[in-house]
């Protein structure tokens, strides 16, 4: 399956409310982690988007935190998407969006009001506020895309796997372009859920650090426009996917599934490991995840490529993490640098990786992003420099 072009992209998260603001914060080494935007009893820091305006009046019935992030997140590629619709036809532009939370934050609120009043809130609509597909419909309304549209929901690998689905959709000739990405929103369900697993840190997460002690949750959106042909800023080369078949919420200790996904990406892309200059690691900041991932990366690449962990900037955006970090790889290829791995220093001895602890210039044609999830779902996305 051949590469497809990445002709436009957009990022919104705790680092900033547009792509350049996000990239600027990465370049300066400035974290976006801070206090949660709502009351929570979980003692942790999060990556929250500072300002989210309501949806336009015509979409008021769809207005949730998740929908606002989707609407705001896709805004910068609306013009490119409409250009693609004119080029290929609106029904030949599809949508594949990864999300894990969907609108659960809105359902939390409805559930609380029901418990307090005894009546289910009349203004809560399960399809428009809770369902995964609501995110797709909001992005459809923003962009005018009329092709097939759906959510990939495999927890924290969701939006990395969305790239695989989008590439296949183009290759199958069902569409010529796809708006692909990920959206997830902060809510108390995820904060208290990860706290129940004893995985949240009380401070900013420190992936790969010797004293790392857990994750920081974040929210955000990342979107790319993929086209069959065009003047791409980068290319989606291949995606490798695998399943651990080991445990629902813990990685295989040797990183076997992670390694299989990475090797599948390289094999499917026809690219030797030595040609990959940088890897944006999943690197959540938990003891088990980072150790297993390090084994997988070291087994395939040794310590040759620069490895960077970016969740110290954004927090773990769950269903939006994969797409965000794929696009951080695109930034690295376009601009020739990778950011410092915030919080990684001092690095845990013996990981066997070449981890960037400061902003580092790179010169490479290929970058890889890894994503791993509950259910043992793994994805590795290989991107190449634009022509």
């Amino acid at each position: 399956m051949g590469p497809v072009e990445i002709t436009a992209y957009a990022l919104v998260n705790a680092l900033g409310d547009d792509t350049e603001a996000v990239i600027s914060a990465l370049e300066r080494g400035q974290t976006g982690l801070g206090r949660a935007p709502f009351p929570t009893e979980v003692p942790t820091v999060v990556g929250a988007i500072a300002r989210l305006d309501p949806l336009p009046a015509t979409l008021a019935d769809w207005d949730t935190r998740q929908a606002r992030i989707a609407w705001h997140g896709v805004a910068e590629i609306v013009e490119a998407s409409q250009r693609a619709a004119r080029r290929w036809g609106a029904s030949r532009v599809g949508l594949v969006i990864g999300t894990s939370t969907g609108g659960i934050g809105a359902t939390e609120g409805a559930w609380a009001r029901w418990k307090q009043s005894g009546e289910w809130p009349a203004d809560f609509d399960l399809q428009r506020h809770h369902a995964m597909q609501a995110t797709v419909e909001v992005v459809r309304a923003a962009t005018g895309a009329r092709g097939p549209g759906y959510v990939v929901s495999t927890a924290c690998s969701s939006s990395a796997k969305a790239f695989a689905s989008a590439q296949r959709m183009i290759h199958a000739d069902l569409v010529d372009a796809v708006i692909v990405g990920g959206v997830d929103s902060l809510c108390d369900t995820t904060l208290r859920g990860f706290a129940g697993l004893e995985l949240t840190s009380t401070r900013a997460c420190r992936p790969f650090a010797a004293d790392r002690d857990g994750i920081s949750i974040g929210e955000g959106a990342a979107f790319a426009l993929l086209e069959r042909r065009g003047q791409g800023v980068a290319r989606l080369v291949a995606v490798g996917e695998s399943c651990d078949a080991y445990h629902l919420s813990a990685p295989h200790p040797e990183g076997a599934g992670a390694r299989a996904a990475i090797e599948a990406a390289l094999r499917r892309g026809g690219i030797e490991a030595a040609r990959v200059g940088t890897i944006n690691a999943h690197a959540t900041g938990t003891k088990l995840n980072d150790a297993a991932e390090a084994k997988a990366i070291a087994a395939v690449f040794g310590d040759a490529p620069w490895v960077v962990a970016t969740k110290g900037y954004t927090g773990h955006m769950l269903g939006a993490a994969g797409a965000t970090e794929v696009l951080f790889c695109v930034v690295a290829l376009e601009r020739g640098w990778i950011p410092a791995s915030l919080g990684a220093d001092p690095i845990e001895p013996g990981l066997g990786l070449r981890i960037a602890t400061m902003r580092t210039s790179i010169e490479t044609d290929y970058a890889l992003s890894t994503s791993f999830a509950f259910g043992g779902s793994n994805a590795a996305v290989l991107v190449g420099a634009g022509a």
Partner: protein
Amino acid sequence: MTAFGVRTVAVWTAERGAPRAELLPAQQRRRCSLLTRMVAEVMADLRDGGLAIAEAPLVCGTGFGEIATTAALLEQMHVEAGGLSPIRFAGSVHNTAIGQLAIAIGHRGRSTAVSAGVHTLAMALVEAIGLFADEVDDVALVLADEPLPAPLQPAHDGLAVGLHLVRVPTPTDMVLADFGPRREPPPLARVPAAIAGNPCAAAWSLAQSIRERRAGTLALEPDEPARRSAMCIDFRLPASG
């Protein structure tokens, strides 16, 4: 245009009784949701029909996923302070069923969970067709939604439909062809009232058409005003039929 075959079809509804989910070891099965057990039940049927379920890519389409587990978490949030049940939380993601199955049967290849509301059947077929374009020969496609827990509405029964899809049909396979959007699509086929509100209800109609070997065109989703069309697919009888 796209054409592919259907080798085996499996349906679980409440009329079959509680899913035995024999693919899952007893200890694992006891901790699994109804949704996961429904998925395991139809996957066992596909295995019995000859599908190598540990090797074939698995696509699970579900509108609301682990909604009963999610509701239990929301209730726990309301009545208790502190962290949520780790087993429930880890089991609340949309890909729980395929993750549990993978552990039980040793599936280490590609699997995914997709969701598209009432379009879930049509979009899960998009995913399967994408895999065929990637030279995959067999796909296990499962469409499943469990009942919505109160107070969520509309009330409906659980439904799981499993399809063993093949890239290259043999003369005995039913053929599905010309998948795509159609203007003026045929009306959605009627389904039993108990599953009418289930996001995967259209999969029941698809299964019926295959079982009854009905040639013709089937609408896979409601007519979509924004797109002024609906995804449809044609049925062709097996060459030997």
